[in-house]
Structures are given as structure tokens and as C-alpha cells.
């Protein structure tokens, strides 16, 4: 390796993400007349990115390992309803509510993981089943137990400070969680052997298993991580807004997939980086929330997201081919 070079940087999975992030900002500044100061001083899109990003990290890892989890769309309201019902409606200590959130995340993750390991069914279908089932359970559970589709929750001060505060009156504290989790996930994926295992599993599962990687256990752990992360986001939302809603969360399904793909992860597995996923969530948030600061009609934001996704996919394809074709030359 002869140090840092431009070619080297271009072949990294997050290069596409950096490019799209810059492109979107430039586009908004050039055509939307937004000033950079307003955009970077605004909290709305950073908050949005943090909520999205915490879910995108484990789902991105799942995608690197060749799987998909769409049940997160139901886990976010499930997490917020669990803590609101336990600690708000039944007035149990907040810690019990948090344990309940953790438990439901682990439980659904285990179901997803076990089904994915035991059957040959694509994880999209499995998690579609759990998505619908959890959604129904949450709705019915909240109506049967509390008689309403929205449950208030008054969290004690320490819980609010840790999970649901607004820093400077606008930045959600969940942003710090997002940054911390990004560091943790980045360390796991890029600096430990587990990260290698995940990438290996996505590249070629049979070879990975033959090489002694406990693929089944690893996969179950990844599914548990993703549904727990989603229920965590739901919990933070409930603590912040002092109430939990049964609806909401469905948007996260496509938003996470899009931000992960924009972040340079291949859906077919085996390729991706945590920095890319982080930037992907940031980019998605700028597109969908930053548009309010521009004089572009916000109705076009979905079009921009669609075009950006296509562009990212095409770019990633090209970059990946470059990366793959480059390596053999080096070895010679």
C-alpha cells in the first residue's frame, strides 16, 4: 500500500455517499437559494437523521451480511407504545418500561433471526410477516389495554436528560446516541473479527460457514440488534414527546433502505461501510428536511430522493467494479 491516493479514496464504499451529500448541498445552494449557515444551524434535519441513522446502522449491517429487515417499521411504534403503556398507563417505574422495550426488541429480533436461519425463505418475506403481525398486536394491544391509540407518558427528569432532551432547545439528545452508536458499529465492523465475519457472510455464506464462522448465531444477533435499535428509537420518541402513537414508523422502512444504499452498501451483501451508512442517513435527511429551507416546492423532494437513489446505485456499481478489478492487479 503506497499511502493515501485519490484512486484509493474513490474505491472506498463511502465515496459515493460523500459525493451525493456534497451534490445535494450544492444543488440546494445553487437552485434553492439556501444559505449554508441556515442549513447547518438548523436542527430539524439533524434530528431526522439521528432517528433514521440509529435504525439504519444495524439494518445496514444486515444488508452487508446479505439480509433485510423491514419489521423495523412496526418496531418503532412498538417500542414507544411499550414504554408508554408500562410506565405511562400502568405507572410502573421507567426502568421497567425500558426493560420492556428492550425485551420486545430482542423477542421480535429472535423470531426474525430464527425464522431466517431455519427456513430458506428470503428475509424480506419473513420480516414482512412480523411487520404486519407486530403492527396488529401493537394497535390491538393499545386499544384493548388502554382504550386509546395514543398513550401519554411522563418520564422522570433523568430519563428525559438521557433519552429525550432537547439540547439548546432544538437538538434532540438522540443525536449523541447516534454518534456514539456510529463509533461502536464502526469499530465492530471495521476493527473486530465480527466485522470481517459479517462481510464474509454477505460475500459468500457457504464459504463463510466452511471457514468456521458461526453464521447462524451471527445472523440472529444482527436481527436482534436491528429490531432493538428500532424499538430504542421509538422509546426515545415517546420520552421526548411525552406520548406514544401507534401509527408512524412505516416511512422508516423505505427511508432506511434508501439511506443505506445511498451510503454505498450493496443489497446483495458483502460490501459497505459504517461511515457510508452514516453519511447516507445524513444525505437522506438533508434531501427530505432541508428542502423546507429552500425555495423549491417541497413536493419534489421525493423525486430528488428517487433520482439520488438511482444515481447512487449506478455509481456504486461502477465504483465496485473499479474496486474489484483493481485488486487483482495489485496482487500481481
Amino acid at each position, binding site marked *: 500500500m503506497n499511502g493515501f491516493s485519490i484512486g484509493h479514496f474513490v474505491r472506498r464504499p463511502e465515496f459515493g455517499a460523500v459525493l451525493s451529500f456534497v451534490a445535494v448541498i450544492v444543488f440546494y445552494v445553487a437552485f434553492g437559494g439556501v444559505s449554508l449557515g441556515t442549513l447547518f444551524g438548523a436542527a430539524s434535519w439533524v434530528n431526522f437523521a439521528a432517528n433514521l441513522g440509529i435504525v439504519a446502522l444495524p439494518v445496514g449491517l444486515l444488508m452487508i451480511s446479505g439480509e*433485510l429487515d423491514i419489521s423495523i417499521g412496526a418496531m418503532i411504534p412498538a417500542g414507544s407504545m411499550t414504554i408508554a403503556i408500562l410506565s405511562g398507563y400502568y405507572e410502573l417505574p421507567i426502568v421497567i418500561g425500558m426493560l420492556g422495550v428492550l425485551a420486545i426488541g430482542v423477542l421480535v429480533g429472535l423470531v426474525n433471526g430464527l*425464522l431466517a436461519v431455519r*427456513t*430458506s*425463505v*428470503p428475509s*424480506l*418475506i*419473513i420480516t*414482512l*410477516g*412480523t*411487520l*404486519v*403481525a*407486530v*403492527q*396488529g*398486536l401493537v*394497535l*390491538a394491544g393499545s*386499544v*384493548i389495554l388502554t382504550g386509546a391509540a395514543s398513550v401519554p407518558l411522563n418520564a422522570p427528569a433523568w430519563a428525559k436528560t438521557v433519552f429525550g432532551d432537547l439540547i439548546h432547545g432544538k437538538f434532540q439528545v438522540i443525536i449523541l446516541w447516534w454518534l456514539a452508536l456510529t463509533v461502536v458499529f464502526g469499530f465492530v465492523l471495521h476493527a473486530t473479527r465480527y466485522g470481517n465475519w459479517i462481510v464474509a457472510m454477505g460475500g459468500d455464506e457457504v464459504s463463510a460457514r466452511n471457514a468456521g464462522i458461526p453464521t447462524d448465531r451471527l445472523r440472529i444477533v444482527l436481527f436482534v440488534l436491528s429490531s432493538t435499535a428500532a424499538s430504542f428509537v421509538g422509546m426515545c420518541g415517546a420520552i421526548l414527546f411525552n406520548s406514544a402513537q401507534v401509527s408512524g414508523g*412505516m416511512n422508516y422502512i*423505505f427511508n432506511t*433502505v*434508501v439511506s443505506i*444504499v445511498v451510503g454505498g452498501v450493496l*443489497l*446483495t451483501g458483502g460490501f459497505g461501510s459504517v461511515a457510508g451508512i452514516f453519511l447516507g442517513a445524513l444525505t437522506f435527511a438533508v434531501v427530505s428536511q432541508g428542502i423546507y429551507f429552500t425555495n423549491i*416546492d417541497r*413536493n*419534489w*423532494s*421525493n*423525486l*430528488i*430522493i*428517487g*433520482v439520488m*437513489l*438511482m444515481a447512487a*446505485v*449506478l455509481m456504486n*456499481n461502477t465504483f465496485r467494479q473499479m474496486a474489484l478489478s483493481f485488486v487483482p492487479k495489485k496482487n500481481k
Partner: protein
Amino acid sequence: MNARNDVLAPSAASGGHAKATIGQLSRRPEAGSLLGLIAVFAFFALLGGKVFLSAAGYASWLNVAAEIGIVALPIGLLMIAGEMDLSIGAVIPASSLTVAIISGHYGLPEIVGISAGLGVGLLVGFFNGYLVNRTRVPSLIVTIGSMFAVMGLTLGFTVLIAGSTGVSLVPSPAVKAILGDFIGGMFQVTIFWWILFAVAFFCLLHISPVGNWIFALGGDKVSARNAGIPTDKLTIALYMLSGFSAAFVGVSQVLVYQSAQVLGGQSFIFNSIMCVVIGGVLLTGGAGSVVGIVFGTLTFAIVNQGIYFTGIDPNLGSVIIGALLLLAVMMNDKFRLMAMSYAAKKKK
């Protein structure tokens, strides 16, 4: 009987059984979905009682089934061919708004609006198929991209042209009778269109040679291409078919409800996939049947609507659907293994 030319081809060809045995029936792709349909129908007939079995009861779930069913058929074919299409969720409102804007807002003849609406579907389908062929990116991602893009275009243009997110349309009686009427005051005419679509798709998948191509494409794409099947053209055609069907649902929706909304159609994305999977189609491709897809759609619609006739909390309906989906998936897994191992034994 022609439906046998898929997974069961070896056993059917070499068997020489004149009659279908029970074992043979249970290995057909739609066996599980028929069982599910009977079980679900019996369950709701028992709990829902007379109201569920009355004409109004039938109408309530047949109307739902017809709309999803028309979309589920081409989605099923795509899934048999090993691909996915999520963009239908955006094509449905896009086509109904196209009709409403052209014929309602601008007052052009309805035939122009309807053709344009269907054209939108064909165009999006072509675009999807072309991109899937060219980029080799999983079709899930490609169609999520086109879904967002079409959604944005629909929203942007509707607000730009009509100034609101809903556009109304008063169709002429003739057009309404063909596409958007209620027969007997409750059965949507869409139900008959669904039957027509189902027959057409049955012929396509199980009688015409194209059907075999679709199975081959889903079973092994490279071999299919080597065997001379025009896989690229076939993929584009399948995507155009699903775009067209989604647009058809959009058109009939605007004629039934006399207005088009920008939001709407989202629920079709996952619902149609669930219908198809409950109907015994494998997402990995290469197995499935049109009869199964129809059964799956009926099952889904009965659970979705039948729950309102019972005393059960309607929200628990989606728990039943989720459980059914997982059950169907696991049963299909089993049945498919049985079918595969049976065929292999015969070969010896």
C-alpha cells in the same frame, strides 16, 4: 391440467397416472393456499354469521380482493421470474391523477385521459425493466427508486397543475358503467375485470410458451438465456405488465370514487406481495401458479374485511395475516422440498 408444467413436470410426465392422487394434489403450488382459504372462510363464516355470508358480506371482501388481485397477478408473475416491483404503490395514484387531471381538470375526452393513465403505467414499467436489465442491481432497490421518483413527480405536478393534492372527476355514464360501476349497488365492476385478468394471466403462465419462459427465468436466469429465451425482453414485458395493471387499478379507482388523491396506493405494495406469498409463490422464483395467487388474494381479502363482521378487534386482523403469511411461507418451503424430492426419486 396444463398448470402442471412447472415444478411437477417430471412427475407428471413420467407418472402415467390418469387421475390426480392426493399426494400429487398436495404437491401443487396452490394446495397450501386452498387449505388456507377454506380455513379462513370457515372461521369467519362461523364467527361472522349471516351478515358475512350475505351478498353485502361477499361484496365487501370481493371489492377489496379485486383491486389487490389485479395488481397481485403481475407481481406474482414477476416474483415467479425472480424479480420484485414496489413501484406499483406510486403508479396507482399516478395513473388515477393523470386521468383526473386530463379529463377532469382540463376536460379532455375520457378516452384520452384513460389512455394516458395506462400509458404512465407502461412507461414506468418499461423504465423499471430497462434499469433492472442494464444495471444488475436488485430489482427491490431499482423499484424503490422509481417509486420515490414517481411519487415525487405525481405530487409535484398535481400541486403545480391543480393546486391541490386531490383532483375530482365526473365520468360519463358509459365509461363509469364499464370501469367504475357498482353492480347490484355493491359489487364493483372491477371484480369482473379481475376475473378477466386472472383468465388472461392463467393462459399466459400455464398454457402459452411464455409461461415456461417465466418459470425458467426464475429458476435459473443464465441457463434460461443460454436456452435461447429472450430474458431481457421478457423482464421488460413483465415490468410493463405490472405497471399496466397497477395503472388499470388506478384508473378504475378514480372512476369509482370520482376523485384522485396523491396519497393512496402505498398499502398495495406490501398487500400485493402478501397475497402472492400466501398464494404459494416463492420469492426466490421458479415456482407458483395463477390459481394460487387468486386464492391468496381471496384469503387476504377475507381476513382483511371479514374481521369487521366478527366481534374481534379489527386490528387483530393484521396479526392473523402476519401469522398466515409466515405459515404459508413455511408450508411452501415444505411442499416445495416434497415436490423436489419426489421428482428426484422418480428420475432414478
